[in-house]
């Protein structure tokens, strides 16, 4: 049996005796006997490290690791610089708690301050929190930030990541914000519908850019429509795309949120990821979650603390803007290291390659019996339609250890390219699907 208890049975008994007890049972006297477990837990017997390692490796081996991946739809296969995992493996950082005791948490606090700066710079915004659970949850928190006494409606585009839409719906079931879905037209948010449904009861509008189908929205025009009614404009953005695309601030957004996973976190079957959230200065005090600020110590030395805590649950209890306490600190650290390692040039390169490769693949597929559905510009995802059966196309790729795009329906596929997909991989993919 494995155990992480230093004290031996003999020592445990000595400790008990030092307090006048004879057995562990004495410590649990407050628990009524008829409530206690009689026969112990129905769990397997404990095991040595080697045995457990064998079992878990055996389980991991039942998963298929694809040699090339053309699927995104919310989780993206990007290159992670070696320095990221090296920093994350540091035991002080990994095993620390939330930095309540600032004097012994300056490293962690500084890393969050640096993360906040990078997120602000990426999005063009003024203030960022220390992260939330993931991009979908960030969307829900962003919407909750905007409601006020007079405005209890939120509009969300149908062309957002399905998980984001579903998460927002769930949160709105809780907080009772009236949610309305703006339909899509030709793969983008229907502007006419949006115009017709805006009024003074709308607290905010949420769109995703590039949207679920990879399309660039008419983000500036949407912002103008939203602001005409005095509502807040929330954009969900792909952080890699910000290496080349206009920032949410440039498009006129009030709040920028998104999935941080592309910035140095593995796909990991869906988590842990992180949601980033940034906003204009005037909304700063409505941001949920942890925020780090710079200050000075008693000797005037620069230091960092958790700040603006008057927003938070441990102070405001039921009046808090959100219940969130832990963020995804270690993931935020990964993002910081990733962006520092990439630098401006690396990030622009990643963004350019994502976009270029997606267009290359789209062109090649066009010559292989597929038509690209995207009407305007797209970033690194696009939709094809074909007379070929989607399941057959994907199965043919799977046979060659390639994970094809995400199935949208029997004839439509959502493809994704990143810097990880080489020209050879793409040419091979096209040869395979041509045969289907």
């Amino acid at each position, binding site marked *: 049996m494995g*155990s*992480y*208890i230093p004290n031996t049975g003999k020592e445990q008994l000595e400790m008990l005796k*030092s*307090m006048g007890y004879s057995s562990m049972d004495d410590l649990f*006297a*407050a628990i009524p006997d008829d409530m206690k*477990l009689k026969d*112990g*837990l*129905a769990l397997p017997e404990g095991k040595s490290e080697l045995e457990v390692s064998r079992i*878990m*490796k055996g389980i991991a*081996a039942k*998963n*298929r690791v694809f040699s090339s991946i053309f699927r995104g*739809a*919310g*989780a993206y296969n990007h290159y992670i610089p070696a*320095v990221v995992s090296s920093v994350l493996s540091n035991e*002080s950082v*990994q*095993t*620390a*708690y*939330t930095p309540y*005791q600032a*004097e012994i948490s*300056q*490293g962690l606090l500084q*890393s969050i*301050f640096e993360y906040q700066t990078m997120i602000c710079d990426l999005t063009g915004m003024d203030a960022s929190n220390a992260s939330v*659970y993931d991009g979908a*949850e960030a969307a829900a928190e962003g919407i909750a930030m905007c409601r006020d006494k007079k405005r209890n409606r939120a509009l969300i585009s149908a062309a957002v990541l399905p998980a984001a839409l579903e*998460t927002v719906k769930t949160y709105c*079931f*809780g907080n009772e914000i009236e949610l309305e879905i703006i339909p899509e037209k030709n793969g983008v948010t229907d502007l006419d519908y949006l115009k017709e449904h805006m009024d003074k009861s709308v607290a905010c509008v949420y769109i995703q850019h590039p949207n679920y189908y990879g399309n660039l929205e008419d983000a500036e025009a949407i912002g103008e429509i939203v602001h005409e009614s005095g509502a807040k404009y929330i954009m969900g953005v792909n952080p890699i795309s910000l290496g080349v695309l206009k920032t949410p601030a440039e498009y006129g957004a009030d709040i920028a949120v998104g999935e941080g996973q592309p910035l140095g976190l593995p796909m*990991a*079957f*869906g988590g842990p990821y*992180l949601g980033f959230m940034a906003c204009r200065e005037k909304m700063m005090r409505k941001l949920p979650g942890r925020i780090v600020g*710079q*200050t*000075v*110590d*008693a000797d005037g030395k620069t230091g960092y*603390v958790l*700040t*603006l805590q008057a927003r938070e649950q*441990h102070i405001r209890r*039921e009046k808090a803007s959100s*219940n969130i*306490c*832990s963020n995804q*600190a*270690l993931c935020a*650290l990964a993002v910081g290291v990733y962006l520092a390692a990439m*630098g*401006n040039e*690396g990030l622009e390169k990643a963004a350019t390659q994502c976009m270029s490769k997606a267009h290359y693949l789209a062109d090649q597929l066009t010559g292989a019996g597929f038509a690209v559905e995207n009407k305007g510009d797209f970033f690194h995802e696009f939709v094809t339609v074909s007379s070929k059966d989607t399941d057959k196309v994907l199965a043919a790729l799977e046979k060659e250890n390639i994970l094809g795009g995400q199935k949208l329906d029997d004839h439509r596929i959502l493809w994704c390219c990143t810097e990880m997909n080489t020209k050879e991989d793409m040419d091979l993919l096209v040869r395979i699907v041509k045969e289907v």
Partner: protein
Amino acid sequence: MLLFEKSREGRGCAILPECDVPVVLPQEKDARKQPLHMPALSEPELSRHYTELAHKTRGVNDGFYPLGSCTMKYNPRVNEQIAALEGFNQIHPLQPQGTVQGCMEVMALAEKYLCEITGMDHMTLQPAAGAHGELTGLLLMKAYHTSKGNTHKTKILVPDSAHGTNPASAAMAGYTVVSIPSGDDGCVDIEKLKEAAGDDIAGLMLTNPNTVGLFDKNIREITQIVHDCGGLCYYDGANLNAVMGIVRPGDMGFDIVHLNLHKTFSTPHGGGGPGAGPVGCKEELAQFLPSVLVEKDGDDLHFTKPEHSIGEMKSFYGNFLVVVKALTYILTLGREGIPQASSNAVLNANYMMNQLKDLYTMAYDDICMHEFVMSLADLKKDTGISAMDIAKGLLDNNIHPPTMYFPLIVEEALMVEPTETESRETLDEAVAVFRQLHAQAAADPEGLHHAPTKTPVTRLDEVGAARHPHLRYHFED
């Protein structure tokens, strides 16, 4: 010094190759105009920067960390090694189910074992943290009451000793919070509970052992009172580390449970996440669970969506790698090791409390569970030394302070949770430090007011930080 201050134009790391296809860029109207200011640093500089930050960060591996309510136990290394396997890490969440049978097996086993430990019938692994689990649990309640047409049930009972997330989560789920006062013994005041338990009560949120470290022996009566008025009982799993394998929330009468895998099941806190807050429930509520459940069909595992699911709480299936670590831990400890972890957590807490109670006032002088709460109100009156001062004094002695000023019902509270992974010597050393600080409070209060002095910075101006928020580095252009 910040990364941005160390940055020098022209430096960098060579991470990506050149583009091997024709370059396509966005049209002018969508092209970024705002300058980017990512740091420009070589890898040696970068690596050293983060090593320096790590030196200024304190984790469990740096020393004793008796942070009450946070269960700062050792984070086994094998857990990390397993979670880093390519077969878990390099898996896209939307791969065909036939290619992720291993991931699904992890989910199925974790659900099964965690249900066994809590006495629940089903469990969702989707919530990313304890607070996220609380919201999930309350939305299950709401869905349940909505399905029964119980629209008049608009209130949630929360004891005044509860963690702040409880009322905040209730508010996010659209409920009104009714605070239940604690009795003199720190437990739920049954008479007050009876008065509050009416037809408008949707449910109760409670942790047991409670936040003062005591097991509420009236727990069955409490859950019965709530059930009698048609409400559901929610168990906040923050303190489960005291009772694993000894008593189960399901057997206490709870209907919904959230767990903190990053507390009880040894996964690291990471400086404030990622954690995981799975939510278990009784059979009747399983139809409302979010996300998917794993079902066995012969040798194959497949996903099913609960019939009246509340939807999604976030993307995909939760913080999967955290679940991998927790499962590794459960397999290691097994049926004997799990209760031993709990009994030793309780032993260590009582051992420390017993050696301190002649000097420090214990908020409740009784056998404690995995943690105990001291009140420094008398010390403050006598010497001017507050809970904060003692906490800061501990920092200079290489001990992470206990949780301060919580629970709110104890004046000048320090909440101490040693956990089972500390040796007797560590506890003895910590006791000696606590006793020495008590002596210093009388002898040299001024010195303690200025603690810490051995840390990278001294006490920081938090008021100034909040008054003039400086939340990012400002670039010159």
